[in-house]
């Protein structure tokens, strides 16, 4: 019965991997309710004290709001540009297509430190000051390959004869897209947007090059707090970010399922 024992070993290692992935997150959440500054774990009692302090700190709230704005704008930009690119790559034939796909995906390959540093030098050379627009533009670059891949894999499954039928019936390109293509691929576009939001919301390594005092984001504030002042408020901020980055995709998927469910 070696097979059963092997499978048990697989299950044991898998369980340990789950523990290693979730215990740290659990500790962060529990510590956000920890009464003491120097936390020993587990806490003997729980308090909402740090939540009170957190919501009284305008700087922290501003950072969360900034991340949300940048995330939403990135989701829209990366969703739109990713969809357009995916359509072009799936439907059209053009030279060096295989190489150009790698160009589209290259933001995944270039280390974020270099993406951050190169663009900062470039924009400074152009005289473009750090702003929220700068953040959205660059976060869109980072999220673009993911949005592109998600929409593209849906388009590979797409039955193109549906579009041909629409065009035979006299619809132009735009109408075909609006009435036929878009409704079918819209769940994939929504997924692409959600993933783009999550990537933007959590990005730190490149973003530290792009923020100014006025446009600082939640991950950058978490990092600054860890480096300078040791305050349990950081656990509250992290818990909030954790909840947002998990709740938004789940809400999005629920929305998708609701939209896809047959209506009477």
């Amino acid at each position, binding site marked *: 019965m070696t097979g059963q024992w092997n499978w048990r070993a697989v299950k044991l290692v898998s369980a340990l991997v789950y523990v290693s992935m979730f215990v*740290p997150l659990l500790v962060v959440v529990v*510590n956000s309710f920890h009464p003491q500054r120097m936390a020993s774990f587990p806490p003997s009692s729980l308090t909402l004290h740090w939540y009170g302090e957190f919501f009284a700190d305008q700087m922290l709230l501003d950072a969360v709001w900034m991340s949300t704005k940048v995330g939403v704008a990135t989701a829209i930009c990366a969703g739109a540009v990713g969809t357009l690119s995916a359509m072009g790559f799936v439907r*059209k034939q053009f030279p060096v297509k295989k190489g150009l796909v790698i160009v*589209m995906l290259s933001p995944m390959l270039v280390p974020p430190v270099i993406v951050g540093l190169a663009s900062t030098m470039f924009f400074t050379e152009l005289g473009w000051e750090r702003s929220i627009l700068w953040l959205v533009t660059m976060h869109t670059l980072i999220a673009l390959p993911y949005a592109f891949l998600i929409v593209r894999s849906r388009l590979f499954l797409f039955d193109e004869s549906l579009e041909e039928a629409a065009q035979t019936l006299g619809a132009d390109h735009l109408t075909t897209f609006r009435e036929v293509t878009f409704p079918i691929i819209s769940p994939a576009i929504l997924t692409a947007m959600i993933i783009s939001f999550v990537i933007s*919301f959590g990005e730190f390594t490149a973003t530290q090059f792009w923020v100014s005092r006025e446009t600082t984001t939640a991950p950058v504030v978490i990092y600054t707090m860890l480096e300078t002042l040791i305050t349990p408020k950081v656990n509250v901020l992290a818990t909030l970010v954790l909840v947002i980055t998990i709740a938004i995709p789940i809400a999005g998927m629920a929305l998708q399922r609701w939209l896809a469910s047959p209506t009477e």
Partner: protein
Amino acid sequence: MSSATQRATRVQDRLADNRYVRFLLSPGLGLLWVLALLFLPLTIIVLYSFYTAGEFGAIVPEFTLANYQRLFGSSTYPVIIAKSFLIGLVTTLIVLPLGYTLGYFLGRTESTWKPLLLGLVVVQFWVPIIIRTYAWIPILGTEGVVNQALLWIGLINEPLSLLYTMPGMLVGLVVSLLPFMILPVYAAVSTIDDDVIQAAKTLGASDWRAFWEVTLPLSWPGIVSGILFTFIIAAGAFLAPELLGGPGERMIAPVIADVFLGDFNWPFAAALSLVYFLLIGVSLYLFTRKADLEEALEGVSV
């Protein structure tokens, strides 16, 4: 309708039907985004790396090799770069068996909990790396969860120093990168037909042999994808060395950020980035000789 608007509409129609205009919109817009915001800035790095660093962060556009002389003049920076790639390799070697095991489990299990278990891995992707990394501080510290548990069991008499050491940093790196191995391996393993494995066993292969000669080769695309992401992200890690590593474990990404944001020495930061970038390029070239880059990159979008 006036003739002017008619003409405008006609021009619009002709533009909309023009191949080049349509190419420029789709897929051109995405390509332009990447070329203008990634490839063009990368050429600026080349230029800046030959500029002279003036005082107070000034950049003097005078050609110099000083940045490269400083970089290669002592062993400091070559060692940092080599160490980063080595850490990338070590992380990958730890992530591979752990991530593979869970990916394999998810691919082969018939549990009713499977969608939930899979979802729990996907959730890891959503949570920012900074949170998944700093979360280890209260766990690995001298007063942390691990030390308290070990002291309580009686395995140790004094707390171990885990935080701000190489092992501590590796723990953070490995756990944060596990999902990049788990999901592509799961995707590959779940497409393997159970009949193929059964056939091997019917022909007399032991469980191990069936695994080594059938399952493992068929899950190769997932493994390759996981290795690519784990290696590149680990070698370029910023947060794990900064938050969990010791002062002796300097890695290239934090060093570049320090030179750029701390010392304001943009030319030297550019030279460091360029050397680092070229080495990543070499790694990717070696990778493409063994595997398909596009396929490997697709691996995470399951």
